[in-house]
């Protein structure tokens, strides 16, 4: 997994998963759900986020419901990485299980919307190319590294099941 480069979309603290994946669209396919991702707090996000862009947030990003459509929506929209002060516990696990690099980034407040960022989840580096600022952060936890770099839980389970049969 190499470093990821994209524009920053910046959010505040305690963004919940109802906002990421509203219940009103719960039954809809992910493509439709994703169109409403973050709508309640940033109506332009889903229409304008570009593949590879990076979501930056304050503490407790993804608090609330276990709905996996929250990280699925970001993945569907092509978000390359999510970096935040801290994460809601289920969102954090879901996002990593979908293979999205999801990293603790205490300096989120120093990033502005539209900044060009480079994130290296293996080395544990966030670089703000717009502000020429470099941050060292905790890399992906060791026990999750193999799963995330293989693309998430499904590819990882496939590998594990293949090993079991051998």
């Amino acid at each position, binding site marked *: 997994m190499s470093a990821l480069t994209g524009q920053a979309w910046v959010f505040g603290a305690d963004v919940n998963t109802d906002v990421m994946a509203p219940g009103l669209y719960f039954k809809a396919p992910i493509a439709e759900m994703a169109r409403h991702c973050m709508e*309640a707090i940033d109506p332009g996000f889903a229409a304008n986020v570009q593949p590879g862009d990076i979501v930056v947030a304050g503490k407790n990003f993804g608090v609330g419901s276990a709905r996996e459509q929250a990280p699925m929506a970001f993945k569907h929209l092509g978000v390359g990485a999510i970096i935040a002060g801290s994460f809601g516990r289920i969102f954090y696990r879901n996002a990593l299980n979908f293979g999205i690099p999801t990293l603790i980034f205490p300096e989120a407040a120093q990033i502005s919307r539209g900044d060009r960022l480079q994130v290296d989840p293996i080395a544990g580096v966030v670089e703000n190319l717009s502000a020429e600022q470099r941050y060292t952060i905790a890399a992906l936890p060791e026990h999750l590294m193999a799963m995330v770099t293989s693309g998430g*839980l499904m590819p990882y389970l496939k590998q594990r099941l293949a090993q079991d049969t051998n």
Partner: protein
Amino acid sequence: MGFSLQQKILARAAGQDSVTPGEIVTCKVDLAMLLDSGGPRRIWPRLKELGVGVWDPDKIVIMTDHFTPAVDAESAAILKLTREFVAEFKIRNFFDMQGIGHVVLAEQGFVQPGMFLCGGDSHSCNGGAYGCYMAGFGAIEMTGVVVTGEIWIQVPETIRVNWSGQFAHGVAAKDIMLLLCRELGIDNAFRVIEYGGDTIAAMPMNERVVLTNMAAELGAETGIIEPDDTTLAAIRTAGREPEPDALQWRSDPDTNYLAVHAFDADSLEPQVAAPHSPDNSGAVADFAGVNVDQAYIGACVGAKLTDLQMVAEVLQGRTVAAGTRLLVAPASQKVLRDATADGTLEILTEAGAYLLPTGCGACAALGAGILAEDEVCISSTNRNFKGRMGANSAEVYLGSPYTVAASAVAGRITDPRELLA
């Protein structure tokens, strides 16, 4: 140094003598609960992709609650698929349209002290009131659980929250949680909240589960309460015999808690959380007078028999205010039967309450009772995030069943103690 209850359960589930906070352990799952929302509809396609079945059909319990009853082609298809999954994988423990999974799981006696359980819904922590470690996970994670029977856990710290004293009439466990959301914050990942003290010891299980259920709102890994005779009696009422060692599942006296908090129930006032977060809370007086279009009694946390009884206590001999609607979605079919048998339901409907089907319903904008733009609701549910119950501009206040009922009678947010005096 001793160990807390949750650490002892994790150590047992991981096959270790002990565990340390921060350590990553792989736990064997005693029971997995799947719901129609994030259950078969999301897991089955993945099992097909992997070419595998489930690890142990007798350790999987499935309930339908989020999309019940079917209201359109999509929800009907989701429920049908859930039933087909149950038949295909020979799941014996299937509760179809019997009520909200968290409530039914306890009613059926599946949660016992010392167990390690995973549920495919964030409020799975509800079960922790029975002295077990039960936490919620996403559907993709639950796919891993039903395939392998295992899950990784980073051993959490434990925060002990003690309550002492007696509630005033009109105050309930929900008020404790709305206060704790404010006091402890909603970002307690990697922490388990352990509740104790004489206030909790005196609570029936229906009130204790409010504390563990809303550990989700605290952002905690889960909530837990050490088992006692009340716990064992509830398991027996559910038709099961507790394990002989059930009461041994306790925290050691010298447990090294991350923090210990003490609160006084005697002085606790009814609490209300204002839009759009459960931690945006204060005493009911701070919000008194806000007009409400809808009062909602529902969800895993707020529509059990004792919750409906609180509502009946307030509504007895009164009627719902003109211009306000009171919707009641009992948490389970058993709750509905019990509330019918003891006369509670009659008091509610006589007062003008509108009865809705059991299930998750309007709490998550899935069933009947969804809010329109700019409408104001006071709700006995656990979340009031923007758009949670419908339109993004709708405003949801959270309160206890007492407070919701009193507000329905007055048509505006009201301190229930005024009506119960």
